[in-house]
């Protein structure tokens, strides 16, 4: 329940006739409210603890419950996204029905997609990739049809802070580098080159931008890459 008194206006298109001057007093949080994430977390945290799930001391979004001698369920929260895995089909069913009844959650099938991460589970292996994210990123910078590069970086390339090169668009560079950093979650092969180019946020030149584009051309040719576990 909301602790502070918060009032909101009536939404466009749904103003109640005869009550045009009234407002709504919130009893529960709404998206966008500053306290919404905290309220959601305290609600689900309280519920999980009550049901015997133990929160990790070091990672407050991770919960574990042990059943009998050898059975465990591990739960990982990401705001309103939840992934969970277990040795026991019983624990899975129990958790699933708890979540569906208590929080009206839907779509609790096998994990395929999580935070832009595509997940494939095949027998005893798991593959994660960001193929869709990568193609969206290439699209955003108009590089969908660029010529793929074999490597993410030129051999012996020496990028410098002040190379005297022509100035480049810093805003678009930051956005590009940010996009590439997010991609390193499933692409350790570009982590080094992205680390190098991310040091040139200030005073960047066309040369730095060129190095970033080189990484983009490399991922354009390796869209399907990801991590196998």
């Amino acid at each position, binding site marked *: 329940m909301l602790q502070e008194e*918060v009032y909101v206006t009536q939404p466009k298109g749904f103003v109640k006739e005869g009550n045009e001057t009234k*407002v709504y007093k919130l009893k529960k949080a709404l998206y966008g409210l500053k306290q919404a994430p905290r309220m959601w977390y305290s609600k689900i945290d309280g519920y999980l603890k009550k049901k015997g799930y133990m929160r990790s001391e070091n990672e407050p979004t991770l919960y574990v419950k042990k059943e009998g001698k050898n059975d465990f369920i591990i739960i990982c929260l*990401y705001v309103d996204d939840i*992934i969970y895995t277990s040795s026991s089909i019983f624990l899975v069913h129990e958790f699933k029905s708890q979540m569906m009844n208590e929080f009206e959650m839907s779509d609790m099938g096998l994990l395929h997609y999580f935070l832009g991460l595509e997940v494939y589970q095949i027998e*005893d292996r798991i593959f994660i990739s960001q193929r869709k994210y990568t193609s969206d990123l290439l699209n955003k910078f108009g590089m969908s049809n660029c010529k793929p590069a074999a490597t993410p970086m030129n051999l012996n390339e020496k990028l410098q802070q002040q190379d005297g090169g022509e100035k480049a668009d810093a805003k678009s560079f930051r956005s590009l580098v940010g996009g590439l950093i997010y991609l390193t979650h499933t692409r350790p092969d570009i982590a080094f080159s992205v680390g190098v180019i991310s040091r040139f946020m200030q005073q960047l030149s066309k040369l730095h931008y060129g190095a970033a584009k080189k990484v983009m051309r490399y991922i354009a040719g390796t869209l399907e890459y990801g991590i196998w576990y």
Partner: protein
Amino acid sequence: MSDPLYYEEAAEKEEWQKAMVEEMKSIEKNGTWKMVDLPKGKKAIGLKWVFKTKFDANGSLQKHKARLVAKGYAQQHGIDFEETFSPVACFETVRLVLALAAQLQWPVY
């Protein structure tokens, strides 16, 4: 087709009208709010409609989603809210859970 940015744009389309009605129903069903007169000295925070067409990884259409959001940036610390905190798992944790699941041959949901 890009998603509408404003209510006025969306109001002309049947699919978005339906999505907004859906969202209102869900808000009322949850007992999110109560209609009252604004007490003197209080300010009401504005609401905004946000429209998003959802696609799956293959790019096929999943649904039209209209979401009502509060303009939280207008809230004042100490008046409209006290504490904030958001629990976000770091990606390493997510990868660790996936690696462990693969190792133990557990399915992930």
